[in-house]
């Protein structure tokens, strides 16, 4: 399997290099002048690289405010990248692929005033993928069935559906534009567990049937683990660790990834009396110097406070930004210090 992934990675569906995006969140000009405040720039995405393997799934993981949704919006064209390169591989038609998106909130992602049929038909009409009433009707019905709904559901309004069903409609809408690349921004975080499983399964089977490529955004490591081939962990706008899924879980190198793994409650293996790791997520407006994780890192030293760690590649395919890992030649930070 790992050889397979490497093959695909050789021709990634999406190649992102040095992507940056910042937002000017400074106070209005007058305030700055009078209160002698400086311009405030929120570096939402700070120089990140990643490849999304064709037909595979790359996940971006991190807590709120880490920039993962910004990446999703850049990839789908909702935001214009400030710097960096973003290249889609050619799709079946020979044109570069375009990305479609599945959103987090199943209640906000469908226009409540539109019937489901029209919601799904919108891409068909906009992109002129089908013409003629009957052709559109047939295609919509087909899509409804693909996502596990019935054609009769097209005549209803979104509020008549449960959260899971709405997310299916969202998926159908995304599929209507015949994308090869789907960005999924926390598609299940608003759903109940049993429904989440349905949606995740559906997405997996669609990937297999249609050869879709996913960029999957989530804060939930267990969901990510289930879905992805590679995982990139983001912290304050940067990727701190990126590795094939199994590698990441087997050899968690970065202390932040370790923190996430430690704090996520696990039903099957509850670590009840784990030590409390303190600290709060720093404001992305004012990230700490050096390695931005150093205030919360048990292994931080002076170098971490001053020097921003670069990404280093390990031989098992992992890429990590941590001085400890670098110093120890690829051994996970925790083990390196303990050793």
């Amino acid at each position: 399997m790992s050889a397979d992934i490497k093959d695909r990675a050789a021709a990634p569906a999406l190649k992102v290099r040095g992507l940056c995006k910042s937002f000017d969140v400074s106070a209005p000009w007058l305030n700055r002048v009078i209160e002698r405040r400086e311009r405030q720039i929120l570096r939402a995405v700070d120089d990140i690289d990643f490849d999304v393997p064709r037909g595979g799934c790359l996940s971006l993981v991190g807590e709120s405010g880490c920039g993962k949704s910004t990446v999703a919006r850049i990839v789908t064209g909702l935001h214009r990248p400030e710097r960096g390169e973003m290249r889609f591989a050619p799709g079946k038609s020979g044109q570069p692929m375009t990305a479609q998106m599945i959103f987090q909130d199943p209640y906000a992602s469908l226009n409540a005033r539109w019937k489901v049929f029209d919601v799904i038909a919108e891409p068909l009409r906009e992109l002129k993928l089908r013409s003629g009433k009957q052709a559109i009707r047939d295609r919509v019905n087909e899509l409804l069935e693909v996502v596990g709904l019935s054609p009769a559901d097209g005549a209803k309004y979104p509020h008549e559906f449960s959260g899971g069903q709405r997310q299916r409609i969202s998926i159908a809408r995304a599929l209507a534009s015949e994308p090869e690349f789907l960005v999924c921004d926390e598609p299940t975080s608003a759903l109940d567990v049993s429904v989440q499983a349905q949606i995740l399964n559906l997405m997996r089977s669609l990937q297999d049937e249609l050869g879709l490529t996913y960029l999957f955004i989530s804060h939930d490591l267990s969901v990510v683990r289930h879905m992805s081939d590679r995982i990139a962990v983001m912290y304050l706008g940067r990727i701190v660790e990126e590795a094939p899924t199994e590698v990441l879980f087997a050899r968690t190198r970065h202390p932040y990834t370790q923190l996430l793994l430690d704090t996520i409650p696990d039903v099957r293996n509850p670590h009840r009396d784990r030590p409390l790791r303190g600290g709060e997520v720093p404001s992305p407006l004012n990230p700490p110097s050096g390695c931005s994780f150093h205030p919360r890192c048990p292994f931080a030293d002076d170098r971490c406070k001053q020097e921003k760690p670069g990404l280093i590649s390990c031989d098992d395919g992992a890429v990590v930004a941590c001085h400890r890992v670098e110093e120890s030649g690829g051994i996970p930070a925790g083990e390196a210090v303990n050793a």
Partner: protein
Amino acid sequence: MLVFILKRLVNAVFVMMAVAFLAFAIFQVAGDPVEMLANEQMSQVDRDALRDRMGLNDPMPVQFMRFVGNAMQGDFGMSYRNNQDVIGLIAERFPATMELVLVATLISLVVGIPLGILTAIGRGRWYAEGLQFLSIIGVSLPSFVVGIMLILVFSVILGWSPSFGRGEVVDFGWWSTGLLTPSGRAALVLPAISLSLYQITLIMRLVRAEMLEVLRTDFIKFARARGIPRHRIWFRHALRNCLMPVVTMTAMNVGALIAFALITETVFQWPGMGMLFIQAVTFLDFPVMAAYLVIISFIFVVLNTMVDISYAIIDPRLRSAR
């Protein structure tokens, strides 16, 4: 904070300039003041001389700046109708209107807030629904109808209160008040009620809406879960949280009320600014119309700005956010 105040002030100045322009435009649109001033026998030569004397031959921007400059010094020219300095005319009537408006505001607060609370906490009960229904009637009855009815019932049929005017007034420098004489107070009752009726229903409905909104918030539920007694939740937590919009609206509405008072003043022959304005309108007394417009807007803008600023001072969330 300072910036916020500054911004509000800049905004206020901007609005006032725009209003001043409107007032200035009244003269331009309304026609030639010379035609209004000249009597029939005036010759063309005299007319031209008059036009020149009034500066009407200057370019528009010059005229506008002169208008603004004069207005800032409180000079709006002379009333065509009364041959009197406009600002003096308005100042003379200002106390009458202010007294009426302030008393009406007071009445509306004193009556409106408790009624609003009552309808909110008794939602669904007969008395709350009844009051709510009354309040719809209150907003629906035109002010002039209310005034006429009050006069009919309380002055003509029952003879309890005077039907017009302000009664005896006592002067303090340029301010004249009717509050110190029995006849002045008696004369104030009906107009103040008539003017406040609409305001009462507004406040009552606002308090009700705000209370209902606040009462469904998590922090109210949490306060209940903390074992805070109902009356304390209503009057300390909920009321305090919804007073802000009420006070805001009341303060902002003082401006609107001053303007609205012109109907009440017309019906009750109350010698205030509104009556002056209405008479100016029927006589096309442009200087008075323009001055009234500018002054009302000024009061309006000053109140709005003050409310905005005090808002930022009072609300702890806004304080640090700015």
